[in-house]
């Protein structure tokens, strides 16, 4: 069995594919909103050097990634061990050579990677215009505004994705997450911009 099929099999027998999907969206949303917040903060702070902004965003993105990996690994490992122990009690056998034991080892690793890489991925996408501008690539509008547009679009698409998996209107779900982004911008404006 190839590694992808093996992961799918392990997620299926532990019924954790929903958890991985939820972590992807929740932490992706966290990453996008955090980047949006940092960049909006810099927009209101006038004279900020692009390298400083990139470093601040990158620092936050790495911290979100590491936090996502470590927190999900610790909690999921405990959950999987508990589930395995419960199953062993019900079966009255040692399952250390079984698919469920493999799942207890590998599912936490996979979920931790999803949880950590999701905010990192979304953050890196959002700060791409800043990198491009810093590298001398001409961006048609201010790289900060471009990054804000990308963040808002990603947040909207995460809402669309949520709408599609929950079989509700994708537009309504997208607008809901978009409103959250706009409320965040408004709050930052009220606290920092005024």
């Amino acid at each position, binding site marked *: 069995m190839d590694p992808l099929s093996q992961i799918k099999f392990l997620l*299926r*027998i*532990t019924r954790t594919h929903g958890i991985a999907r939820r972590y992807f969206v929740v932490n992706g949303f966290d990453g996008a909103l955090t980047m949006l917040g940092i960049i909006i903060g810099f927009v209101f702070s006038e004279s900020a050097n692009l390298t400083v902004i990139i470093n601040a965003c990158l620092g936050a993105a790495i911290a979100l990634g590491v936090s996502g990996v470590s927190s999900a690994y610790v909690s999921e490992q405990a959950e999987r061990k508990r589930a395995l122990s*419960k*199953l062993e009690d*019900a*079966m009255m056998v040692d399952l250390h050579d*079984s*698919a469920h034991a493999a799942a207890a080892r590998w599912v936490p690793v996979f979920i931790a990677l999803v949880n950590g890489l999701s905010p990192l991925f979304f953050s890196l996408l959002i700060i791409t215009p800043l990198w491009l501008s810093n590298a001398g690539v001409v961006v048609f509008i201010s790289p900060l505004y471009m990054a804000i547009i990308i963040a808002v679009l990603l947040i909207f698409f995460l809402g669309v994705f949520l709408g599609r998996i929950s079989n509700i209107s994708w537009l309504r779900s997208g607008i809901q997450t978009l409103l959250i982004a706009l409320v965040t911008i408004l709050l930052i404006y009220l606290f920092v911009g005024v």
Partner: protein
Amino acid sequence: MAFLKRLVLDVLKPHQPNALEFSCKLAEVGNDYHIVLTVLEVDENTETIQLVIEGDDIDFEAVQSTITSMSGSLHSIDVVEVKSEPKTE
């Protein structure tokens, strides 16, 4: 030489992998295995199943190892059908 032709096994397994996946994996152990899986009893975390495996030369060790790898536990061998055939060169 004796060839194992038919086995009826009593197995306890978790709900996942489900009956379809469980029997398909067992069928993949041999080239001509015919599997009939019957769920006899369903509990909160487990289910008791009866497995009927038919083939020209069933590899019991491989069957047992596949059951274990899918978190199943072999409780008993209820029926065995063995046929002796002359060795073909």
